[in-house]
């Protein structure tokens, strides 16, 4: 059987063939991928395009918000009607009861707790609301409704009323991207509340629990121990609850114990979050010995 020729005759040519275009653009894409993972200098471009897309993103959110508002209206209306009839019944029975919208009550309690946390913390704190989660199935990220204009900076810690949620990784003019503590290889310096042992909590990606890595099997850690931020790297203020130890696998054949943890904060649930600005920059890390530095540079230069 003869194939129908994919190539048009020479007099119909419209620029380079699809295959050569694909080859060229494929090489471009791979170069972009490398540039983005290694050097991160495309952040500027990203910044501009995100600002341009922002109104449309909000427009897309509008129907959902309107629906929630209308639903809320009808729910509260029905609740009021129910309440009314119930109150009339109780009036008859001469037994007063207090019924309030449970949803609103719970939300109020949460906001109050969040406010309390903000008061305890001396630095600048910005209350934010979650806009949406990332579409990408490989990452654990959120987008919140305030950005550079509200004083949110990349590197700020993000908490809810129960504990640490994550860290701002990109701040755009009107929104910010928050990487959750469950993101793969996202590190939080922690301290065991009971024994004071320092360690680092690493996220493990979607659907897997974070773990304490590089901890000796003999370390004094029990199931149920709470992990607090140690404040060592200056990103997270000290003393915020982060996670709880749920499983310890002390295999003596391994160099380190496997310690699985469960985040205490509503990492995948909370709607209202608090962004904590850094109080003061820590003194810079002392210079590493010069010979190591030059050896590293030399290796890079040769490559």
């Amino acid at each position, binding site marked *: 059987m003869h194939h*129908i020729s*994919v190539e048009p005759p020479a007099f119909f040519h*419209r620029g380079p063939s*699809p*295959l050569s*275009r*694909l080859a060229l*653009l*494929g090489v*471009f*894409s*791979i*170069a*972009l*991928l490398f*540039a*983005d*993972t290694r050097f991160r200098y*495309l952040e500027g*471009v*990203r910044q501009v*395009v*995100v600002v341009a*897309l922002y109104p*449309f*993103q909000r*427009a*897309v*959110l509008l129907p*959902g918000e309107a629906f929630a508002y209308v639903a809320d209206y009808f729910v509260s209306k029905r609740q009021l009607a129910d309440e009314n009839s119930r109150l009339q019944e109780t009036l008859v029975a001469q037994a007063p009861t207090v019924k309030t919208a449970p949803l609103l009550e719970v939300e109020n309690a949460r906001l109050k707790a969040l406010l309390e946390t903000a008061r305890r913390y001396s630095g600048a704190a910005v209350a934010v609301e979650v*806009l*949406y*989660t*990332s*579409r*990408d*199935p*490989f*990452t654990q*990220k959120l*987008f919140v409704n305030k950005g550079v204009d509200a004083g949110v900076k990349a590197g700020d810690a993000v908490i809810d009323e129960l504990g640490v949620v994550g860290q701002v990784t*990109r701040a755009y003019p009107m929104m910010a*991207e928050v990487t959750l503590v469950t993101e*793969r*290889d996202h590190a939080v310096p922690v301290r065991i509340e009971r024994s004071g042992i320092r360690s680092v909590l690493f996220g*493990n*990606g*979607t*659907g*897997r629990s974070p773990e304490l890595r590089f901890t000796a099997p003999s370390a004094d850690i029990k199931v149920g121990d709470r992990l607090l931020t140690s404040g060592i790297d200056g990103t997270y203020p000290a003393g915020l609850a982060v996670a709880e130890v749920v499983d310890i696998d002390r295999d003596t054949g391994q160099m380190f114990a496997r310690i699985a943890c469960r985040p205490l904060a509503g990492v*995948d649930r909370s709607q209202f979050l608090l962004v904590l600005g850094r109080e003061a920059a820590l003194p810079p890390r002392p210079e590493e010995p010069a010979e190591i530095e030059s050896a590293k540079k030399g290796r890079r230069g040769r490559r």
Partner: protein
Amino acid sequence: MRMLPGVTGLNAARSEEILRPVKPSFILVTLFLALLANIAPLAPVTTALRPDLLALVLLYWCIREPRYVGVGTAWFVGLVMDVADATLFGQHALAYAVLAYAADYFRRRVLRFPLWQQAVQVAALLGLCAAIVLLVRIVGGAPLPRWTYAVPPVVGALMWPLLSVLLQYPQRPTRSSAKR
């Protein structure tokens, strides 16, 4: 002379129907709407099922209008998607460019089949697109996703017949224009 049939019901144009030329602005608008649909927030359950609508619309135009939409357009649209998604710069660009090339290669074959059989081939093409994204991410150090990662291309393929009819609608001759 036989009168051209008016557009009745949700059917694709038959081969004897002569379609009006597509407006480039219509292509742009549909691509943009698909991008918005892609970045619209949904509940976590539906996010796992959501097909890549942008890839689907792109595929449609690559197959139907290769003179307007080709590898270059797909690559650029992929870059915009990467930015909107805030993921690695270039992963969707690469995947969409390959998708557009595959669409161009197979387009004559795809169009010979009825819509439901086209959908099967579309599932394969969307699967290819998803596989490239997966490959890029795994090379970049991401963990393997769960099996639900394979669901969106299938959902996308199921939407293909409806999408084809909808996107073709403005190009089909109406009864009044056929009389003239």
